[in-house]
């Protein structure tokens, strides 16, 4: 099967999705579900309004801070538990069971600790991202051939030099997978945070649009978020594949 035919098939499916949307619109009615074409027109018209830009900036800022925290803490835990065998053996099952918990139940606790502002949402986003980054980093470092470490000892590298010049480069492709998964769940965490008890950000915007029955705005935010997440994921996947090939 040629690549062009595959791409054409995928496009056909996208088209089918729009048709499905149109049918949903016919069935659910104008107020609940606006038609696709008016929604796209609304989207193009409203992408540059100050209100949308302000919400977009808030979400972007929260995502940025949350990622910084998630990557920093996640990498630190992952390197520690990957390099120190006992800590890893003790900690891994704890991390795995924390990973599969419904973290939304902890959101009220996060709000009580960090308050209703931007810091609560940042902390909640980071809470989602830390675990996959830590788990995949740990796995990556454990999978490094022991001979690399013996070489590092032979060359009398300091612990920091060992991490910087041996462990991280060798583990990079897997670590990057962790960063990509971390990105996805951090974005989800930030959005969930915005959907509950928040006035700013795209998550709050979509909840507000539902409450005032503004269908076009609701779909517009969803489309923008989907497009952003899909593009970011495609970019991260592209980098990841190149890292894997280099190895």
């Amino acid at each position, binding site marked *: 099967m040629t690549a062009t035919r595959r791409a054409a098939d*995928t496009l056909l499916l996208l088209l089918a999705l729009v048709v499905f949307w149109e049918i949903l619109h016919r069935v659910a009615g104008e107020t609940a579900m606006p038609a696709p074409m008016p929604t796209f027109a609304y989207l193009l018209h409203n992408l540059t309004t100050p209100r949308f830009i302000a919400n977009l900036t808030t979400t972007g800022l929260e995502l940025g801070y949350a990622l910084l925290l998630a990557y920093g803490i996640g990498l630190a835990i992952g390197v520690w538990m990957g390099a120190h065998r006992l800590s890893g053996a003790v900690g891994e099952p704890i991390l795995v069971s924390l990973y599969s918990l419904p973290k939304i*139940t902890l959101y009220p606790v996060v709000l009580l600790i960090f308050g209703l502002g931007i810091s609560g949402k940042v902390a909640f986003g980071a809470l989602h991202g830390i675990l996959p980054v830590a788990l995949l980093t740990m796995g990556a470092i454990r999978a490094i051939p022991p001979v690399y470490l013996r070489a590092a000892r032979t060359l009398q590298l300091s612990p920091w030099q060992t991490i910087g010049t041996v462990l991280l480069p060798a583990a990079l492709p897997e670590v990057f997978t962790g960063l990509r998964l971390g990105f996805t769940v951090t974005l989800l965490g930030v959005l969930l945070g915005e959907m509950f008890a928040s006035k700013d950000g795209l998550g709050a915007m979509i909840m507000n649009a539902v409450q005032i029955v503004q269908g076009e705005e609701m779909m517009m935010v969803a489309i923008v978020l989907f497009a952003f997440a899909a593009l970011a994921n495609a970019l991260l996947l592209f980098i990841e594949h190149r890292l894997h090939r280099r190895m």
Partner: protein
Amino acid sequence: MSRIGLIRFVVIAALIGALELACRTGLIDHRVIIAPSEMASALWTLLASGALNADIALTLSMVGLVIALSIVLGFAAGIAIHALPRLRAALDPFFATYYAVPIFIFYPVLIAIFGLSIMPIVLIGVATAIVAMIIATLNGLDRVPRVLGKVARVHRLGPLATALQLQLPAAAPYLFTGVKLSVSYGFIAVIAAEFILSPAGLGREIADAYADFNNRRMYALILFLLVVATAVNAVLHALDMRFAARRSGGRV
């Protein structure tokens, strides 16, 4: 208990003990976090009073429904898509991106369409959980060894017997991964949907208790959900270990 298990137990106990101490001495304000012992006693009182029974039944039956629908429909869809290579090739980019986009953002959209009932919750739950099962089914069917097809022909097995006696066992480990993910995703999505906006359920109760500054009730409910989720995950993990042991045991 192994040495590592013992250390793990001590670490967890020490963390809980430290939290207890920090709360009891007032280092952590009781308006922020209450002592773990208080959470447990509040949960005990709440469970004994029976006031939660309706919410527990609602939430757990919704989670059960979501998981059952996702596994059955996801498995069926996986088989159908596997049989249609062209459709599958077209769907692959969607599957690769599905869990990278925040599907949950569609929950409010579903509320707009179906109103504030359990319908949007079940739908968002299935939407979150089903794709993991579809992907796992496809993976499992891909990895059925080709030689099994020859074995089936040699033994003159019909299509149904081939599916049940050869293909299903061969794909089972992958299918179980799908089941595990569906359970986890279904649980998370239902609780999240209840918490954000819903008519009833445990997630909603937590949100209400938070809004009422009723920390004893809120922490009791959180503790309950975390215990249930941990127990479910532990059971799945134990099953996983047993399957793995049986597979490696079968290989001489």
